[in-house]
């Protein structure tokens, strides 16, 4: 669900402003500018909707050495990212293995497919209270939620990748005397890689959203989700808005920046465009 598409080619003007840059600046500027003015003049409650500059200022302080605790926001970001990475890494390994088992073997398909379709309709966050009982308030709870959120997309895409491969590729490999390991190494793994990355991209998106919610429900200390929920108990609106802004920007960076770059690379290398 990406929004941007190539703009229609226009006649080049000598001092044409790059509209792709102007639009976000203007529309976001307008939104935050109006908010700022309304909050400063008292049109809207400055307690419930603190002016954006005040939000940024409080974010700046809490991310710095004078925050409480010092560098608190940075710690929250680091812990959230650690949980995300751990959960997604786990999902990447286990998800690909299960995906390969489903796609390549009869027993894997027979066993895993029904079980997965039975587990999948459970809302990811409904696992949180159960995991809280098993692991307690611990990083393992949030990491497992992230793992669950990310793994279904990865499994699904790996299976699709295998199904999309033509039989002829196998035949070619087999006719040239490739062993099973060689087939896996040289045919299947490169074949599913673009799909795996699509799965990763979607999975990371879900995982990020699930992580924040899970942190609100289950984190003991730190993490962006915990931070905004904790701030609510003290009615510290500036911290809540600052946290939400951080979550949104980080989420965008992860989805567009990190995973997007990875995707672009593989597409360039293999020339495959995975439509979804």
């Amino acid at each position, binding site marked *: 669900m990406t929004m941007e598409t190539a703009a229609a080619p226009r006649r080049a003007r000598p001092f044409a402003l790059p509209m792709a840059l102007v639009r976000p600046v203007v529309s976001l500027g307008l939104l935050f500018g109006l908010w700022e003015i309304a909050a400063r003049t008292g049109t809207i409650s400055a307690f*419930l909707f603190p002016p954006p500059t005040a939000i940024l200022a409080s974010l700046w302080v809490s991310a710095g050495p004078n925050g409480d605790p010092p560098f608190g926001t940075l710690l929250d970001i680091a812990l959230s990212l650690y949980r995300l990475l751990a959960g997604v890494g786990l999902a990447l390994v286990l998800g690909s293995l299960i995906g390969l088992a489903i796609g390549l073997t009869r027993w894997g398909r027979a066993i895993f497919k029904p079980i997965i379709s039975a587990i999948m309709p459970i809302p990811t966050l409904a696992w949180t209270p159960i995991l809280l009982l098993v692991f307690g308030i611990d990083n393992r709870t949030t990491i497992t939620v992230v793992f669950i*959120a990310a793994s279904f997309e990865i499994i699904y895409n790996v299976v699709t990748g295998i199904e999309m491969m033509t039989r002829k590729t196998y035949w070619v490999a087999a006719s040239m005397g490739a062993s099973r390991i060689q087939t896996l190494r040289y045919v299947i793994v490169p074949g599913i890689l673009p799909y795996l990355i699509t799965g990763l991209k979607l999975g990371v998106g879900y995982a990020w959203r699930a992580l924040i919610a899970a942190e609100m429900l289950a984190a003991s200390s730190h993490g962006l989700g915990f931070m905004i929920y904790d701030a609510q108990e003290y009615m510290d609106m500036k911290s*809540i808005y600052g946290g*939400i802004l951080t979550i949104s920007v980080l989420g965008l960076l992860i989805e567009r920046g990190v995973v997007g770059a990875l995707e672009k690379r593989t597409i360039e290398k293999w020339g495959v465009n995975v439509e979804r």
Partner: protein
Amino acid sequence: MPPGFRLFDRVIVVVQFLLPILGLLLFWELAVRTGLAQASILPAPSTILARAVELLGLTGERAVLFGHIGASLKRALLAFALAVAVGVPLGFLLGLSREAQLWVSPILSLMLPLPAVAWTPILLVVFGPGDLTIVIVCFLGAVFPVLYSTMQGVRACGTQPVWVVRSMGGSRLDVLRRVLIPASLPALITGFKLGMAHSWRTLVAAEMLAALSSGLGYMIFSARSYMDVSTMFVGVVCLAAIGMAIEHLLFGTLERATIHRWYVRDAGTGGRQ
């Protein structure tokens, strides 16, 4: 193939599907019975089933489960209706006007990576815990899939059918009624399906954080404080079963009655969650 055999084949498929699930449940039951798993953390499926029977009021106790399910459904449906009321008109606007879409999209892409649940703290401060907060959170979860699907459906319609109707003297209303709505209907229904699924999935978390006294999420989260694990599992199974029922029975029927009947190709199905 004679019909008897076809039925036999179907039964085989169903059995093959259910076998691993039953196997897993059996293994779980045995693990608890033999003491391999701790019953206080992972109760046996039979215990959970017994608890479900109790909660349904079949043993003469108060049937609390229906109350929770009703409260949850009411909130999710209300949020979904709001999401449709906002998402569809906005989707038509942004789908029809490329310029409007380009200007609004920065704001939308800033909102998109945010889980709807992240708004809960603000809403808790503004409105306090209760139905209003929960419904708004679910609305925020449901509105984006509806909006995006509508936008894509309208955009996919293309300009030529619009020109045709206009050149034959059709008014703008005619274009809307005879071109845009029929053309975008498959995408609309996909969007509704996704929107309802998001509303339902967001609901659990919202209810855990903000419900006062009812709802499945509340039931699960409050059972946690009594270490009443079987009730938690009953709640989780209910969430999954109702989610499935909404998706397959409600929207499946709707799709068969409309898309599959009126359109040749199935609309692209979207993502999960």
